[in-house]
């Protein structure tokens, strides 16, 4: 057993990094346990000629494909959307696209505005100062005064639209649809020790330049300098509970496989929308036989994954290919509810660039556009660097049957039960997807694409893991309160995407981190009464 710490954070990703940095100024003893390790920028695929191949091996977004020692398996056979995670210092921010939209004000009020799901116990204005602080810490690029948001600014100018973004922008203007440069966690200028983006290519497998803001290079260096201890290669097995109903700490396996108990006065879950409920469900006790903090039976339920159909288009003219960040511009034309469309809520159109040669050739051969044999070379030259795509980011509302449970058979390398995912599309989401596919196809054709294809769900795995420990004021209908504290266990907090009440139709990292900073601030304001 080691000495007790004041705060024990489980997970060092988007939320854990932000939270640790914010709490560091309390001078409390703070330890974070991370099951992965530091990843060196020199290890990222962009350093090598095999960069594209590694996206399908050790840098794949799917843990079931990567199978690295830091990964735990996920049974997602019963989910149309596969689970993307990354387990390392920085977590999913190492492997995300760095698209950085905030949730919209309406996303927090879906019951009041649209009569569906539940309202959040907090709102956009609650989070606004934390959005701003997080934008500064992460170093966000973007264009101020987007008409689809309340006014806000960014520390850096936006990513260039390039050939594909410009082509889409003209088409959007002809259709009279909203568009705006994407906010991105990518430095477009030298920023706080990070070098500006030099367009290495798709940003998902980690940025060798350090232009992409992952928390291992933003929050963590500052948190560690301020005294936070980050222990890597430490996989937590369970959160322990004392006879008084308070969490007492965590049992984990260290880098040598030794079992360690780390006592703590406060335990903070930051292991993402899959890892956090998995760990709580694995933490059973006499008081909580169905998992820690689960008197509501909502731990693991209401999983939202953001179904993400993609429309691909090929043009006669050269596009950007892989030669730039994947994100360029977004459209919120169909974001807010319009019941005449046949569904509630809405979606964002996210405009992206194209693949490298391997991705293009693979897709071409699979689709039959590129033959085997003599014709392969000419066909490849018709398609290579001539593709762009539009993603449809759908607001899948919470449904209790979409959930995480513990798989009865599958276990990780330490014998800890793995998560099982059950996820289906609601009729509302399915209708939204089809509307988005139709509009994206219309736009692609307006932009001049000579060939378009649609991928509804297969291979589109955004890795947005939300809603599985949602926040609320009613202990019967939520897992944590409006500032992240468990209703059941008063020194247990959840600060990651699990607390989302609804998912919105945007990439969630900006909001996840704003919430983590907000909860840290609430805790600091309430230190004298934290457990009351």
């Amino acid at each position, binding site marked *: 057993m080691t000495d007790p710490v004041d705060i024990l954070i489980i997970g060092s990703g988007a939320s854990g990094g932000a939270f640790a940095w914010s709490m560091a100024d309390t001078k409390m003893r703070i330890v974070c346990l991370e099951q992965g390790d530091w990843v060196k920028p020199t290890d990222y695929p962009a350093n090598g000629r095999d960069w594209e191949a590694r996206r399908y091996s050790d840098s794949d977004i799917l843990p079931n494909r990567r199978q690295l020692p830091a990964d735990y398996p996920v049974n997602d056979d019963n989910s149309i959307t596969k689970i993307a995670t990354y387990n390392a210092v920085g977590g999913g921010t190492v492997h995300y696209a760095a698209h950085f939209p905030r949730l919209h004000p309406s996303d927090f009020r879906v019951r009041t505005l649209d009569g569906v799901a539940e309202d959040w116990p907090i709102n956009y204005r609650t989070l606004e100062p934390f959005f701003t602080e997080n934008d500064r810490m992460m170093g966000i690029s973007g264009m101020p005064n987007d008409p689809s948001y*309340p006014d806000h600014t960014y520390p850096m100018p936006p990513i260039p639209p390039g050939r594909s973004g410009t082509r889409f922008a003209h088409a959007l203007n002809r259709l009279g649809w909203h568009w705006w440069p994407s906010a991105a966690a990518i430095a477009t200028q030298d920023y706080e020790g990070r070098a500006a983006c030099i367009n290495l290519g798709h940003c998902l497998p980690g940025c*060798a330049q350090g232009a992409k803001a992952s928390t291992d290079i933003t929050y963590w260096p500052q948190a560690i300098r301020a005294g936070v201890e980050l222990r890597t290669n430490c996989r937590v097995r369970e959160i322990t509970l004392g006879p008084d109903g308070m969490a007492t700490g965590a049992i984990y396996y260290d880098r040598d496989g030794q079992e360690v108990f780390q006592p703590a006065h406060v335990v903070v879950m930051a292991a993402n929308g899959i890892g956090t409920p998995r760990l709580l469900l694995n933490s059973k006790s006499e008081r909580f036989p169905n998992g820690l903090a689960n008197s509501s039976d909502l731990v693991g339920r209401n999983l939202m994954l953001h179904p993400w159909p993609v429309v691909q288009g090929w043009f006669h003219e050269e596009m950007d290919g892989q030669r730039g960040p994947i994100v360029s511009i977004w459209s919120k034309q169909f974001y807010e509810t319009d019941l005449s469309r046949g569904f509630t809520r809405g979606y964002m159109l996210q405009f992206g660039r194209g693949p490298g040669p391997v991705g293009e050739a693979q897709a071409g051969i699979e689709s039959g556009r590129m033959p085997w044999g003599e014709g392969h070379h000419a066909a490849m030259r018709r398609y290579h660097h001539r593709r762009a795509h539009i993603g449809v980011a759908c607001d899948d509302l919470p449904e209790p049957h979409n959930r995480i449970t513990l798989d009865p058979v599958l276990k990780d390398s330490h014998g800890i039960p793995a998560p099982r995912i059950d996820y289906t599309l609601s009729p509302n989401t399915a209708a939204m997807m089809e509307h988005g596919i139709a509009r994206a196809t219309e736009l692609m054709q307006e932009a001049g694409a000579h060939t378009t294809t649609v991928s509804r769900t297969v291979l589109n795995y955004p890795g947005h893991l939300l809603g599985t420990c949602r926040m609320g004021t009613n202990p019967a209908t939520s897992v944590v309160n409006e500032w992240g504290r468990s209703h059941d266990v008063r020194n247990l907090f959840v600060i990651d995407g699990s607390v989302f009440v609804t998912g919105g139709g945007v990439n969630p990292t900006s909001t996840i981190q704003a919430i983590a900073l907000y909860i840290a601030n609430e805790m600091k304001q309430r230190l004298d009464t934290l457990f009351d």
Partner: protein
Amino acid sequence: MSNTLANPPPSWGDPTLTDAEKRTLAAMCARMIPASAEFKVPGADDPLIQADIAKSLGRDATAVHEALALLDRIAGGDFAALPVAKQDEACATLRAEGGMNLTLTTRIVLQCYYRDDRVMISLGMEPRPPFPKGHVLPQGDWSLLDPVRARGKIWRDA
């Protein structure tokens, strides 16, 4: 719990190809992507590319072994020994029946083929990794946003 892997685990399959498998693979690759004088590129059966493929099976080793075995079965025992016309017939059957094993095998072939210097140059690419030189992304004209600004606010007060 490292984020790198020193050795492939046994569950990925034998990472080495037998000599017979290498012959089958090379013959299949020659039918998939033949050399082209017009485009100044080698075929995927080029010895350098084949050597790259042979050491790149990784997570898909089992799939490659099974795809090659299927191709030999379709060919009646030895695909590489067939005349070219018969090889093309066998490849057509493989493409119909190969499933995921063929998809993964094809991807490995493409991963190695499209990182070959000669092939990248033919495509107009510099034969180098993305870092540290990067790429140039054309700057845009943000005055294109003027009509969007003119239409005004579209977010919903809540």
